[in-house]
């Protein structure tokens, strides 16, 4: 059963993102703060770190494609960036110790990087005309605060689900050869 849990969580997070997006932008003292939910990519980084980078890439490609087609109509943007972030996460974690705190920090750093690359891209094609200072203050900072809150609350749950799946795969000898490819 745990086998299907990871894609299922991914799907739920994918649908939850725009729902939380409905609450943004937040207005405080006349200033607007944008909060971009990045639940899915954070979960995928966890999958990449604790389970299987290749698997995380496939999930990233699939959900990225859905995201591209449904929301932004620029095909190839998220479906490239999601797997790319997973690969970076997978390669980084090979050389460092994997505990929950380090994974959380790595996830947040990669999410911020992801957000920054998107900002650069949208500036390049002229859809965003925001000075970098405004971007850091009104977008990146509130986004990272909200997302780190989310991760601190649910990070351990992600890890336990993913590790449970990892152990399940290790214990099923018939599947391990196939999956280990």
């Amino acid at each position, binding site marked *: 059963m745990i086998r299907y849990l990871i894609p299922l969580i991914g799907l739920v997070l994918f*649908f939850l993102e725009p729902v939380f997006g409905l609450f943004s932008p937040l207005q405080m003292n006349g200033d607007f703060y944008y909060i971009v939910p990045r639940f899915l990519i954070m979960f995928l980084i966890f999958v990449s770190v604790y389970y299987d980078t290749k698997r995380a890439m496939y999930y990233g490609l699939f959900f990225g494609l859905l995201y591209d087609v*449904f929301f932004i109509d620029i095909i190839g943007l998220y479906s490239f960036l999601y797997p790319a972030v997973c690969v970076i996460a997978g390669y980084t974690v090979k050389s460092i110790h994997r505990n929950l705190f380090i994974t959380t920090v790595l996830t947040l750093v990669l999410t911020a990087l992801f957000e920054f690359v998107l900002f650069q891209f949208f500036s390049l094609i002229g859809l965003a005309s925001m000075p970098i200072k405004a971007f850091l203050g009104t977008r990146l900072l509130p986004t990272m605060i909200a997302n780190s809150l989310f991760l601190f609350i649910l990070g351990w749950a992600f890890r336990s689900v993913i590790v449970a799946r990892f152990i399940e795969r290790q214990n099923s000898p018939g599947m391990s050869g196939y999956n280990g490819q």
Partner: protein
Amino acid sequence: MPQFFSNKRLILLLLGVILLVALISFSLRDRDNVSLPEQIIKDAVGAGQSVFSRPAHFVTGVFDNVDSLLNTYEENKYLKSRLEEFATVQAEVTDLRSENAELKELVGKEEDLRDYNPIQATVIARNPDQWEEKIVINKGETSGVKPNMAVMTARGLIGKVTLVTKLSSTVELISTQNPNYRVSAMVLGGDKAVFGLIEGYDADRRELLLKRIDAEIELKEGQKVVSSGLGGIFPKGIVIGEITEVAIDEFGLTKLAYVKPAADFTLLNHVVIADRLTPEVDGEDNGETGDGES
């Protein structure tokens, strides 16, 4: 690390980048119709999304209710002060309406740019990375939605439909940075209506720019701006906003006015799509309407 860039991987990476650039440039073109696989994905995701957005709307509804409860006293005071004014205005409106109808009958004019079929829709998602101002609504081609139709809330214009699939459609809000986004508008309140184009959005001031107004014409702050219906697709008379400042544009030939939008773009929930009764023609509201043939 060295084996990360082995030959096979390098080639794959290069191919991936080429494919990526090709796909992005393909999808960045101005498209007015969506390909079949995209339609299928959009409808499937839209169906799932509407399941998730329903409880969210319930929650935001509760927040809204609490919010309006807290403001009740202030609001009531204000409303009472407006009430008397309202009665006279309403009497006048009824009178003018009947007069207008009689006059139209006299002239034999049946169609009016103002008339439209309202299509009610619910917002099922807002683009979570809020770079492009886009929302997705739960009505599509089967409900009669077509590209470039005006979308509004009870308070005023919010945007126009950009892409339509069978069961959902994408709406680009007027607060977008897209330079090709124009709405033909007019200013009310002077001796006669003044025409201009809503072109662009000032993100710092959170106000729209009304451009190409004749430099001879005097405009005042507080005048109302509505859609003119001359752009070809939008009906006439949808409230857009109120002028807050008048300036000369960068070339000094025409005037430019800052318009504060009447509608609120945050927490959008229910919207109305205006399907104009007068046949649509090509115009400034957007390039082509001739997608019926394609």
